[in-house]
C-alpha cells in the first residue's frame, strides 16, 4: 500500500485529514509528523520501501517552518519529484505563491477544499489511490 506523509502540528487538524481520507475512501498508509524537524528527520532516515508517495504539508509549523521544510525536501535528491500538497488555513496568497516558487505541486485550503483534493489526486499521478471502503491505516 502506498504511503502518504502528513506534516501537521495541530492534532485536531490531523484527525480532520484522517476523517476526510476515510470519507473519500482513500486507501493508504498515513504517516504523521508533528513538526517540521520531525518531518525532515523522518524523510532523511526513511527506508526506500517506506518512502511516501505524497506529502501533505502544513505551512505553519513549530521548530522548522513549512516553507523551510518544503525547500529542504526539494533539496533531497530522492524527494525532488515527490508530489507535495501544501495545507494552508488562511489561504494567504503570499504563502501559496512562495510555496509554488519552492516547487509545491498544489495547495488545499482547510477546511473547504478536501472535495477538491480528491479531484486533484488523478492529476498528481495518483492512479494508485483506490476509492474503496477500506479506511487508511495510520501509523
Amino acid at each position, binding site marked *: 500500500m502506498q504511503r502518504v506523509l502528513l506534516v501537521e502540528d495541530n492534532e485536531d487538524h490531523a484527525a480532520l485529514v484522517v476523517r476526510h481520507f476515510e470519507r473519500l475512501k482513500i486507501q493508504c498508509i498515513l504517516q504523521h509528523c508533528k513538526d517540521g524537524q520531525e518531518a525532515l528527520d523522518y524523510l532523511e532516515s526513511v527506508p526506500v520501501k517506506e518512502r511516501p508517495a505524497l506529502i501533505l504539508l502544513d505551512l505553519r509549523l513549530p521548530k522548522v517552518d513549512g516553507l523551510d521544510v518544503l525547500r529542504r525536501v526539494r533539496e533531497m535528491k530522492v524527494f525532488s519529484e515527490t508530489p507535495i500538497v501544501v495545507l494552508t488555513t*488562511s489561504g494567504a496568497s503570499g504563502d501559496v505563491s512562495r510555496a509554488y516558487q519552492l516547487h509545491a505541486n498544489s495547495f488545499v485550503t482547510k477546511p473547504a477544499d478536501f472535495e477538491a483534493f480528491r479531484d486533484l489526486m488523478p492529476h498528481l499521478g495518483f492512479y494508485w489511490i483506490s476509492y474503496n471502503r477500506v479506511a487508511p491505516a495510520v501509523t
Partner: protein
Amino acid sequence: MLTGSAVVLGAFAGILFIRDTVWIRILDNVHWTVSYATGAALAWMGARNADSIEGMIVRRWFAVGLSCYTVGQILWDIQVGIGWNPFPGPSDFFYLLLGPCFAVGFYQTLRQSRGAQIRAALLDTAALSTTVLAITLAFYLPRRGTNSPFTLSVMALYPVLMLSAACLALILIPTLRLRWSPRWALLLGASMVNGGLWMQWNSLTLDDALADGTLLNAAFSVTAICMGAGALVWKAVTSTDARYDRWSEGWLRILPLILVVGASVGAALVATLPGEKDLVKYTTGAAALFVVILAAARQSMLLADRDNLIAAREALRETETTFLSLFEGAYDAVFILDDKNYIECNQRSEELFGRPRHEIVGHSPVEFSPPLQADGVPSTDKAREKIANALAGYPQRFEWIHIRSNRMLFNAEVSLKRIDYPGRPRLLAIVRDMTAWKRAELERDRLISELEEKNAELERFTYTVSHDLKSPLVTIQSFAGFIRSDLEEKAYDKIATDLPFIQKAAAKMDALLHELLELSRIGRKVNTPEDCELDRIVSYAADIVAGRVAKAGAKVILHPIGLTLSADKPRLVEVFQNLIDNALKFMGDQELPEVHVGREHKNGRDVVYVRDNGEGIDPRYHHKLFGLFEKLHPEAEGTGMGLAIVKRIVEIHGGQIWFESEGKPGLGTTFYLHFPGWRTN
C-alpha cells in the same frame, strides 16, 4: 567726393581768373550743381553705411533733402539756360524741401529720447523758429519794395526753414546730452551757415544787388559739400557724465527764459526805434507774443515734469519702505556683496552670525566660515569659485558651513545671484540657517524607520493571528460537517467521537482570544507603578504556581535578590509566574526537576535569572522562542503566547529579557532579566 570737390575747386579758380560775366555765371552754376550732387551722393553713402536701422533712417532723410536740393539746382540750371526765370519757379520748390527733410532727420534722432523731453524740445524749437521768423521778417520787410507778400513769404521761407531745422539740431545738444563730436557738429554747423547764406542771398535779391562769382556764391557750394560730409558721418554721440547731464538740464530750463527776455527786448527795441514801419513793429510784436506763449507752455510742461518727478520720488520712497521692511524683516539672512566682501546685510544676519552689523559689512564670507567645508575643500577656494560663477550670471545654490561669533558651527543653505546695478555688478546672497531643518531631517528618518518597523511587526502580527485564530474554526467547521453526515447516515456512535473536537476547539479559541486581549492590554491599560521588592514578587509568583510544582514533583528554590523596581505589580508577578510555569512544562525526563530564581552579576551588570534543569532548547529554534503563537512542542498545553506576553511586559518597563540554553537535556535553560530602573533595597 574727391572728383566733385576737384571740379568745384576748378570752377572757383576759373571764377577768380576769368573776367567774362557769362562764363562766370556758367562756372557758378557748374560748381553749385557739382557740389550739391556730391553732397547728395555723400549723404546716400552715409545712409548705406549706417550701423543701425535708426541711423539709416535718419541719414536717408538727409540724403533725400540733399537730393531734392540737387534737383532744384538742376532745374535752376535749365531755367537759366532757357532764360525763363519766374519767382517762385519749379527750382524754388525743390530748394525749399532741404530744410523740412533735415528737420525730419533731426526729429528722428530726437525720438530716442523720452516723451516729455521730445515735446519740450519741439516747443523750444518752435520758439526758436518763431524768433528766426521774426528776425527774418524784420530784416526783409523794410526792403520789400514792390514785391507781393507771397513773393516775400517764399523768400523768407528759405532761411526760416533751413534755420528751423538747424535750431532743432541745436536743441538736440542739451536734450540728448550730445558729447562734442564732429560727427554731429559738422552737419549742424553747415546747416546753420546754409540758412544764413540764404538769408543774405534773398536780402541781396530784395536789394537787387546779386552778383556773379562772389564769395557768397562759392560758400553755397562749400556748405553743400560739408552738409553731405556731415550726413555721411552723422551720429548722435551722447554722454552719461553726471555733470554734463546737470549742465544740459540747466540750459534746457533757462532756454525759455532767454527766449522770453530776448523776444521782449527785441520787440521793445523795434517798437522804440524811430523810423521803423508799423508792419515791422506788429510782426515782431506778434512773434514776441507767440514766443512768450510757447515759453509759457514749455514752462508749464517743466512744472508737470517736476510734479511727475515728485510723484515718482514718492512712489520710490514707498517701494523703498516696502523693500526695506522685506529686507529687514526676512527670516533669512540677506546680504549684498561685491566680488569679495559683504557691503550690506539685514538684521537677521546679525542674529545668525551673532555679530553687530559693522563687524559683518566690509568683511568676507570666508571670515565667518571654518577653514574647510564639509566636502574638504578650503572655504577660500570654494567661496571664490561660487562668487565667480554667480558674477558670471549663473545663480548658485549650495550648502555651506558658517561659524557664529561663539565659535559654534552651523549648516546653512546659500543662494547667490547677480544684481545688475549699472556699471557695477553686485551679488545678492540669501543665507538660511538649516540647523533646525537638519535636526528635523534626522528626526524624520528615525520616525520613518520606526514606523516601518512597527508596520512590519503589525503585518506579522495580523498574519499570525489570522492563521492561529482560524485553526480552531477549521476544526469546528469540519467536524460540524462530519456530524451532519453522521446524522444523515444515522451513525450516532461517531457523533460521540466527533463532538469533543468541536468543544475542544471552541475552548481553545476562547483561550486564544483571552490571551490576545491580555497582550493588547499590556502597555495600553497600565496599573499605577509602585515599588516592587523583587524577592516578594518572585515568592508571590511561586505561590501561584505551587499546585503545578507539586504535581511535577519539582522544587522551586528562591535565592535572595535584594532589588526594587518601580513597576506595574500584577504584570511583574505575571512575568515570573510565566517563566516558572514555562520551566516546569519542559522538564523532559528530569527526575529531580528544579527551578532556581536569583540574582547574579553578568557582563558588568545585575541580572535576575530563572534557571531550570529541564530538557533545554535546541539552539536551532532559539530565534522562535518569543514569537507569537510559537510552540516548539505542539502537544504542550497553552496557546504559545506566554513568552510573547512576558517579553512585552518586560519591554514596556524598559527592561530586557533573554535566555541561554545548550539544548542538552539536564542542562536546562536560563532566562535572564535586566531592568535599568531597579535599585538595591
